[in-house]
């Protein structure tokens, strides 16, 4: 073996040295995007996403990122530009939140239908009205039935790593769906933390060849009509529609497997692992559990440790992949506990509870068992979810275990503070 091949072999086994920096979540997302080498980003600023696109613009202006940047005149056009780019073969990226996401909805719903692997970071923001420019999951939750993959990050490091992985997941041939990387507005977007930067060469090897428009293209050398009318309400029309819609659903289900594979590959090549679908924390011998999503999880883990020290047999279930909903993985976790408290950072208006809570009830039904449970809603409009808040959740859930009646209404954590 020559020295070069020896070095190459060694490199394949261990990740290259990673630079340690301090970065806010928005900056980490931008750095993750740069590592994935997109061809095109299109941007429109909105609080609390703005610093993310400012970082992207600077990376491109400094020549540290080779991508075409389109400063479109609004989010609707932002995503439309990227659809065009993807149909011409570009790897594409953008970020938005709240009102911007709402304005984007028309092309947003269409993106998974065209199976375009666009990555869009939602720097989550609460839904207006009431007027708010602060964090909350209401925006991402509101569009959860639009056919995008949605993953939520817990830490700044996870934002960086997941952003790169999102491209790989989206472009997997068994998936071919757009991905939302959800990072909590305020606490993650502006929270600066120590992060390790994967080496570009490691990421390049991880990403492999780019081929985003093998299945559909607007290319004069491959003429086709993209998205013709399906053929009316009778005969083969509805059959055609069903075939494509079912294909979208299959792609979503395939994503559950691919998300796990991509996380495993990332762990192998980059040396950091994250629970891909559902994380279980101190759950194996737990009597009851609390459930979290996003940046609230860190405080919740600290609270769990304290509660454990105080003798409470409590564990934590964190959802990372919210869409597709990881029913099987969640059922496995739920099977271990006898009571459950679910914290949502958004509201499910129809059921008067948190949306993640409502979805979880579906998984419990599949599991075929009834356990007492409660919905907690906190952290709306930038409110903090602190260790004491989580202790309250732990205590009230523990009471269920001891026979207290489960309330039919959610508990609003920040209602009286």
């Amino acid at each position, binding site marked *: 073996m020559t020295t070069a091949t020896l070095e190459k072999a060694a490199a394949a086994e261990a990740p290259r040295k990673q630079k340690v920096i301090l970065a806010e979540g928005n900056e980490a997302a931008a750095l993750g995007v740069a590592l994935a080498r997109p061809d095109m980003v299109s941007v429109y600023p909105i609080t609390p996403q703005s610093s993310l696109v400012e970082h992207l613009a600077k990376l491109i202006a400094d020549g540290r990122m080779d991508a075409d940047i389109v400063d479109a005149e609004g989010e609707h056009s932002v995503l439309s530009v990227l659809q065009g780019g993807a149909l011409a073969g570009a790897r594409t990226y953008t970020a938005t939140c709240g009102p911007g996401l709402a304005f984007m909805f028309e092309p947003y719903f269409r993106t998974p*239908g*065209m*199976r*375009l692997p666009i990555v869009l970071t939602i720097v989550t923001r609460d839904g207006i009205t009431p007027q708010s420019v602060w964090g909350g999951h209401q925006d991402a939750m509101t569009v959860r039935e639009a056919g995008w993959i949605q993953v939520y990050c817990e830490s700044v490091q996870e934002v960086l790593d997941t952003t790169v992985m999102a491209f790989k997941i989206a472009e997997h041939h068994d998936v*071919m769906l757009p991905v939302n990387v959800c990072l909590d507005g305020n606490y993650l977007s502006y929270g600066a933390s120590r992060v390790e930067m994967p080496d570009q060469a490691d990421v390049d090897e991880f990403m492999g060849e780019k081929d985003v428009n*093998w*299945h*559909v*293209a607007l290319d*004069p*050398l*491959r*003429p*086709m*009509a*993209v*998205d*013709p009318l*399906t053929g009316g309400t009778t005969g083969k029309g509805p059959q*055609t529609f069903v*075939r*494509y819609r*079912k*294909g979208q659903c*299959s792609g979503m289900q395939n994503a559950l497997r691919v998300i796990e594979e991509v996380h495993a590959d990332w762990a192998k090549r980059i040396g950091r692992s994250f629970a891909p679908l559902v994380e279980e924390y101190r759950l194996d011998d737990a009597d009851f559990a609390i459930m979290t999503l996003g940046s609230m999880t860190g405080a919740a883990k600290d609270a769990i440790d304290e509660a454990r020290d105080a003798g409470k047999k409590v564990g934590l279930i964190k959802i990372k992949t919210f869409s597709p909903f990881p029913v099987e993985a969640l059922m496995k976790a739920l099977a271990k506990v006898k009571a459950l408290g679910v914290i949502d950072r958004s509201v499910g208006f129809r059921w008067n509870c948190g949306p993640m809570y409502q979805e979880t009830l579906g998984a419990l039904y599949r599991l075929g068992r009834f356990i007492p449970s409660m919905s907690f809603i906190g952290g709306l409009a930038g409110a903090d979810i602190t260790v004491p808040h989580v202790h309250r959740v732990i205590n009230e859930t523990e009471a269920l275990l001891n026979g207290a009646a489960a309330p039919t209404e959610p508990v609003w954590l920040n209602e009286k503070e």
Partner: protein
Amino acid sequence: MSRHTSYPLFNLEQAGVPDDLCPVATVVSPMLPGDWRSMRPVVDRDKCVKCAVCWLYCPVQCVEEHAAWFDFNLKTCKGCGICANECPQRAITMVGEAQ
């Protein structure tokens, strides 16, 4: 760009693209609207000077050049009558399809 004929349409099957991903179409519509017509253009070959005005204004572009006159492809002609109206030689007459 000097090319004036189309490239072959993409073959999805050959490329191994599943038929449940993005809705696409790669076969040209076989529809021929000639049966929409109630009136049909008839050319007076003696009057036609091949000025191509009928070709210029025919919405379906069904005008065909012959040795000494222009005529119409009746598979696609919808019978709108613009050609008869615009012909400077009055060489085109619209006649009922029943005739």
